[in-house]
């Protein structure tokens, strides 16, 4: 498996209403080399920032992030060739009017020949059982089909690491299960943030992020239990404050 390393990584952004920057991630150090890594935590805890660092979409304010030794800032193009990223909303990710065209767009750089590109696009769609939807407008697809289409477009270029930012948030139960089964069959290393704790339990290792720090790092069942307990404690404390 590839190795993703965070060394004392901090991310902070300027704030208009305060001279102090807002800290999104604080001195995170990790080495991720498991096949399936889950990231859970409350909204705004820093999960998405952590994932975006792996693809170079966010640059660290301090520290370094590497993928198999390649720095995500100085070697960002190389990193992006080996790290695929799937966003929460597939509509913001699918750039072309149909799924086939979007997969072909992914392949434009690597495959100059149009008919070969088309063949590879069909193969990528067929792999996820989407060939029958290849020429349908992306607006006519269900949420799950769109998410799988976005996944197919990313997988078409054979990334070694697949980063998914809450991929099941907009999906119904059936589509969530479909996505879960599809992900289970992939050979790539998967690093995924999710609010779906069942999905988190499928992982090999789970990180709980809280206020920009890794609050727990360990076995999925323990991580989910710790997260649940903190959430309930937090809720109880808030209710007591109100009373």
């Amino acid at each position: 498996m590839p190795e993703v390393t965070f060394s004392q990584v901090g991310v902070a952004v300027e704030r208009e209403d305060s001279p102090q920057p807002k800290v999104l991630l604080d001195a995170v150090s990790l080495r991720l080399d498991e096949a399936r890594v889950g990231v859970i935590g409350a909204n705004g805890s820093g999960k998405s920032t952590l994932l975006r660092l792996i693809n170079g979409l966010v640059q660290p304010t301090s520290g370094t992030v590497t993928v198999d030794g390649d720095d995500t800032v100085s070697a960002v193009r190389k990193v992006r060739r080996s790290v695929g990223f799937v966003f929460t909303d597939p509509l913001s990710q699918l750039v072309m009017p149909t799924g086939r065209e979007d997969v072909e767009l992914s392949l434009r750089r690597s495959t100059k020949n149009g008919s070969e590109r088309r063949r590879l696009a069909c193969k990528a769609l067929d792999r996820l059982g989407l060939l029958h939807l290849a020429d349908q407008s992306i607006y006519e697809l269900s949420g799950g089909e769109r998410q799988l289409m976005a996944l197919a477009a990313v997988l078409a270029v054979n990334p070694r690491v697949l980063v998914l930012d809450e991929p099941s948030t907009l999906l119904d139960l059936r589509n969530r299960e479909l996505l879960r089964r599809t992900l289970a069959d992939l050979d790539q290393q998967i690093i995924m943030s999710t609010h779906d704790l069942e999905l988190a339990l499928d992982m090999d290792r789970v990180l709980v992020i809280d206020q920009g720090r890794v609050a727990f790092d360990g076995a999925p069942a323990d991580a989910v239990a710790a997260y649940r307990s903190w959430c309930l404690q937090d809720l109880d404390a808030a209710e007591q404050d109100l009373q």
Partner: protein
Amino acid sequence: MRGHGFLLANYVPGTSLVHRAPLALKFLLVLACGLMSFLVADWRISALVLAVLCGLFLATGAGTKRLWRAVRPLAPVLLVIGLFQWWQLGGPAAGRIVLNILVCVVAASLLTATTPVQRLLDGVVHLARPFTRFGADPERFALTIGIMLRSIPFIAGTFADVRDSAKARGLERNPRALVLPVFITSVAYARQTGEALAARGLGEAED
């Protein structure tokens, strides 16, 4: 999100004469129609060209529904332009201007209805290749066209959603309630698209 209100027709597979015509010829047709709107001064010629283009569009098998879907979103704008020009320049000039806009839209629809997007992008890359000596990246030209084709229905869909939510709140007559959310959503969409392209390594210079 509704996104079906598309200004240009999507590709319709077929074997018609227009489908089989070289891409360069179809590009030239669109270019000629654009130029015609500046040069032709007689509304009757514009009407004749529009009729020929509509005939060609229907001959491709794309159907009247697609043709209507391509021009329908423009109807309110054309009505406003037509009335204003009638008031300013008279009936024949107003007719010519409205017909020339329709000529351009139908010509562009003829191109997109009979050419797969990837073939269209390959054509753009080919056309843009001479500009590489000035530092231009032909793939970026193609990507821009692709994003444009995808963004038009998104913005049309956003407008429909915003109009419905304004109606639900009784604000359908408030232009701010219509324009501002569409503007904000479009900017957010542009940012998300840029991020998605960056994540996929698209639009970066060739190695």
